[in-house]
């Protein structure tokens, strides 16, 4: 019944409104006050407010000042404490290409070459806490891919990387790790470090069998495939995953061990071309499909000025939806392209979202990384939490993105730092926003100010401060409010 619906809907009215209304019925009967009295009362009130605000400003702690953020750039940052937590409690920057979404770009690049160096520092993926070594790879030949640099960097799980130095030559199928200027946390130097073009060789499901094809010199000095790698610790657990296309088939090739380098490359090329043409799997089918049907979109994406898009793909039984979001220097922007394809090639539509950045705008975007790299999250006190110093940081997360000011479309960078604080059981939420303008000046901003600036609250976390949203019972985190 409609009237009952309204009655029940009113249960969602915020508590402070109810409190105020309840108070208005609990207080003694109000007497009407004359306007003469109101003037005097208002003057007293203003005076009292002035005194109160002066006192508050005078004792406001300097906990979130720019000065402190900058000074603590090299301070300790115990990212390790956040390991093994759920994704939602990860710590680091956003702008990730999630495993399934990343498969479109998988195997676009296959290279032959050698590892020349393993960088000395240990790096942590800020989103998941996984530890990596970063390897410098000198490319001898590009089997598949375009514009592949002669020297590239790729990341490999900490426990696997040393083994690769033992081989004379490698063929690898690689993909770019998410974004341009991908941020990794340098454990040795306690700071974020950006890699302009970082690759990786495995996906979220673990290292894949066949991703690396190692070669050693045989007794005649010829380079031949060695499968010694796959019997080493860690490598012997590698999987044949559902992605991997031609290399997956190669891994099952009956004469893989002992094949010459030339023969192996020839096989790979054949498999690659066949795979692209026929679609070994979902990845290639889609890639082929896109290239034919959405050329205009691809032309836009692959031009130099716009080569900073990251693909996000969702597929259903009869529809493929592709949602491209522009990332600049690793941070998400509101610029998007949507593609819908139904029943394979029978139906296609695509459209640009708003805004679309001009080249001039792209060149003048605020540098979020410059501020992000100076953040020391341990040194910042969650600003809205009462007695925050008595709580433990359960997890902390820093996310960067670009926003536009509603009034004049000026571009800003925004870093949202979110905290999950616990008293040992309940987990509370807090956040802090840092707004960065094109000239590099940055300042903290409250939710209300940001909502006014952008004309929307879509960039904001709307959880209430000083409210427990989760309860941590041992290893299990329960959500208190759906």
């Amino acid at each position, binding site marked *: *019944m*409609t*009237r*009952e*619906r*309204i*009655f*029940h*809907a*009113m*249960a*969602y*009215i*915020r*508590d*402070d*409104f*109810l*409190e*105020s*209304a*309840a108070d*208005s*019925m*609990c*207080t003694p*009967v*109000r*007497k*009407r006050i004359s306007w003469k009295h109101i003037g005097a009362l208002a003057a007293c009130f203003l005076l009292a407010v002035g005194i109160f605000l002066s006192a508050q400003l005078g004792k406001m702690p300097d906990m979130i000042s720019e000065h402190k953020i900058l000074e603590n750039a090299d301070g300790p940052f115990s990212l390790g404490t956040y390991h093994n937590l759920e994704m939602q409690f990860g710590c680091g920057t956003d702008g990730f290409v999630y495993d399934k979404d990343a498969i479109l770009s998988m195997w676009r690049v296959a290279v032959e070459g050698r590892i020349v160096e393993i960088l000395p520092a240990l790096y942590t993926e800020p989103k998941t806490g996984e530890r990596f070594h970063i390897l410098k790879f000198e490319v001898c030949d590009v089997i598949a891919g375009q514009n592949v640099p002669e020297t590239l960097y790729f990341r490999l799980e900490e426990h696997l990387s040393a083994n690769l130095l033992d081989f004379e030559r490698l063929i690898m199928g690689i993909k770019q790790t998410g974004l341009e200027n991908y941020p990794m946390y340098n454990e040795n130097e306690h700071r974020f470090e950006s890699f302009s073009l970082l690759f990786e060789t495995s996906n979220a499901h673990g290292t894949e069998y066949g991703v690396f094809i190692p070669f050693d010199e045989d007794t005649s000095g010829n380079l031949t495939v060695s499968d010694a790698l796959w019997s080493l610790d860690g490598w012997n657990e590698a999987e044949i995953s559902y992605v991997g296309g031609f290399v997956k088939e190669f891994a099952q090739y009956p004469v893989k061990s002992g094949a010459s380098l030339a023969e192996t490359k020839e096989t790979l090329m054949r498999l690659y071309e066949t795979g692209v043409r026929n679609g070994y799997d979902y990845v290639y089918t889609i890639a082929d499909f896109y290239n034919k049907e959405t050329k205009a979109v691809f032309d836009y994406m692959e031009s130099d000025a716009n080569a900073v898009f990251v693909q996000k793909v969702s597929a259903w039984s009869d529809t493929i939806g592709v949602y491209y979001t522009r990332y600049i220097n690793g941070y998400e922007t509101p610029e998007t392209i949507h593609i819908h394809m139904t029943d394979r090639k029978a139906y296609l539509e695509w459209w640009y979202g708003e805004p679309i950045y001009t080249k001039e705008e792209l060149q003048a975007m605020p540098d979020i990384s410059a501020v992000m790299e100076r953040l020391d999250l341990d040194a910042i006190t969650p600003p809205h939490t009462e007695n925050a110093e008595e709580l433990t940081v359960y997890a902390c997360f820093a996310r960067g993105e670009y926003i536009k000011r509603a009034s004049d479309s000026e571009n800003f960078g925004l870093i949202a730092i979110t905290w999950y604080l616990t008293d040992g059981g*309940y987990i509370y939420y807090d956040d802090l926003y840092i707004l960065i303008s094109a000239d590099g000046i940055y300042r903290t901003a409250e939710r209300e100010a940001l909502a006014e600036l952008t004309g929307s609250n879509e960039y904001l976390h709307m959880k*209430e401060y*000083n*409210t*427990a949203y989760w*309860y941590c019972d041992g290893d299990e985190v*329960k959500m*208190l409010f759906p």
Partner: protein
Amino acid sequence: MDDNNIISLYRARDESAITKTAEKYGAYCFAIAQNILANPEDSEECVSDTWLKTWNLIPPEMPKCLRAFLGKITRSLAFDKYREKTSAKRGGGETESALHELSEVLSDTDDTEHTYEIKLLGEAIDRFLATLPRRERDIFLCRYYFLYPIGEIAEKQGLRENYTRNLISRTKKKLKTFLEKEGFSV
């Protein structure tokens, strides 16, 4: 005892939490139930049910505002009881009167009665209330959330009854317009 200490008693599963809650909020919850049920015995029973339900909810719930939390439980329980008692015959009283007034705001043709849509509606009403001056909002909620008689509201607010009635009527019309703009069928 302050609310945090009472909540701590619930968390510690200390049964004195109920006694302390009843001491502090018994009258408040009784008033809410009584406004809906217009029957002291039923209202007492409803308040007792409120304590039991609160005991079962905390933990894991951790209410930010205990009074509002208890009020919502009481209101919901009282309304269930009201429906139960009036399923055979529709009675009078403030509940029926307030519900009748509210029925002018939203159309009966809208058949969406799912919890999610009720939540959306609630959030829309909340946004609407945020646009109102505090006193107008208090009066509206006293009437339609707490179901106080208009005369009692007027008295507590220091206003004339006619003025209060007109104010409520205007607020209701504004709500109707607001919900229309928000896409609700009115």
